[in-house]
């Protein structure tokens, strides 16, 4: 007998990756705050390390509407024009 596969077969697609910068020196870094308790405090510390130990010029916090949605288009557009790098991926 035969049965049918219940899973979704992945569809291959090509994604254009941004090139990794050779150095962080002088770069502007966007930090995405997902709104969870202390995520902003953690990101401030990360920002300070990036500035003091890796020569990053400036860090700016961008706040999502809430933790369960992607960053909204307005802040993505702002990050695109302002930032060289983005730190995302805060969990619990």
């Amino acid at each position, binding site marked *: *007998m*035969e*049965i*049918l*596969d*219940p*899973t*979704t*077969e992945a569809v291959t697609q090509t994604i254009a990756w941004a090139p990794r910068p050779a150095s962080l020196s002088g770069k502007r870094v966007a930090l995405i705050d997902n709104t969870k*308790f202390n995520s902003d405090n953690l990101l401030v510390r990360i920002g300070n390390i990036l500035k003091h130990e890796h020569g990053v010029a400036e860090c700016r916090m961008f706040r999502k*509407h*809430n*933790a*369960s*949605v*992607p960053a909204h288009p307005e802040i993505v557009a702002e990050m695109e024009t302002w930032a060289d790098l983005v730190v995302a991926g805060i969990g*619990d």
Partner: protein
Amino acid sequence: MAATLTSKRLSVRDEADAIEMAYDKGWSDGLPVVPPTEGRVRAMLEGARLEANHQVGIIRDRAVVISAEKVAINAVMAGCKPEYFPIVVAAVEAIADHRWSYHGPGTSTGGAGVLMIVNGPIARPLDINAGDNLFGPGWRSNLTIGRAVRLVMRNVCGSRPGLLDRGTLGHPGKLSYVIAENEAESPWTPLHVERGFRAEQSAVTVVASDAPNQFYNQLSNTAEGVLTTLADNMRISGQVMGQSTYVVVLAGEHMHTIANDGWDKKRIRQFLFDNTQNSYAHLKRTGRMTGDIAAGDEQRMRPLTELENILIVAAGGRAGAFSCFIPGWGSAKSSQAVTKEIRS
């Protein structure tokens, strides 16, 4: 002509072999599944008169398109009858709705179940339980409809426990979490009518939810007495600070006590809103709100949730002075309750 089924086919010796294969491939929630043969899957699709390539939903944040064929395969595996399929489809439409915000409750450490509340004329002929042992066990429709939705989440959307689904504790409702409102005996406006549907329509409301919290009041014979106990239990519950959706399920004896005092759902909701607030000082003292206690914090009150986030449902056994409330997952802003019409 019926559309071709495009899913990959796998050969197995017999039904027992198919059940083991489902375990080996990680398709099961831990219980045996009904092997999804082409004949069974086609019968399931016919239950909602859907073509296999019909798009039931898209979860954009996960780049997943959910086809009727995949929903049907998972509904077969869950043990659904074809006549249940329209409810499964409506529930999947609801969890794919952007307001439900799949990526949160489908993945969160908070361990959300998908509470599904069925309203309207479809519930009775399909024997969807609204009475004794409301949350199970014992009813095929309740247990298999919810299981089908969870298997879609697992197999189509990728919410596998331990991988994308990171629930710290989970709860038994993550296997299946389906109830009907007891419209036949309820003195109140049905949930789906409060949410904009007509009484003669059938609808399912999905809520990303914690487990049920049962409360006891075997002494009061007034609405205020019963609801005072409920409010006291609710006040510190769920995420507390999150202002979640709350589903309040009022069973037979409590339902009659409250209705006999002339209280409708609107008045119940207002009472619960007014009597579940916490002081800022208490929230800070108990590690729920950040910051030091400031002047006025003992008197400054924070609602447990917004008035419109309290959903009232009449359901549960006739005997017993018990009812329950179910805190929603996260905040109501992060995942809203969504109601969809069941088209059968």
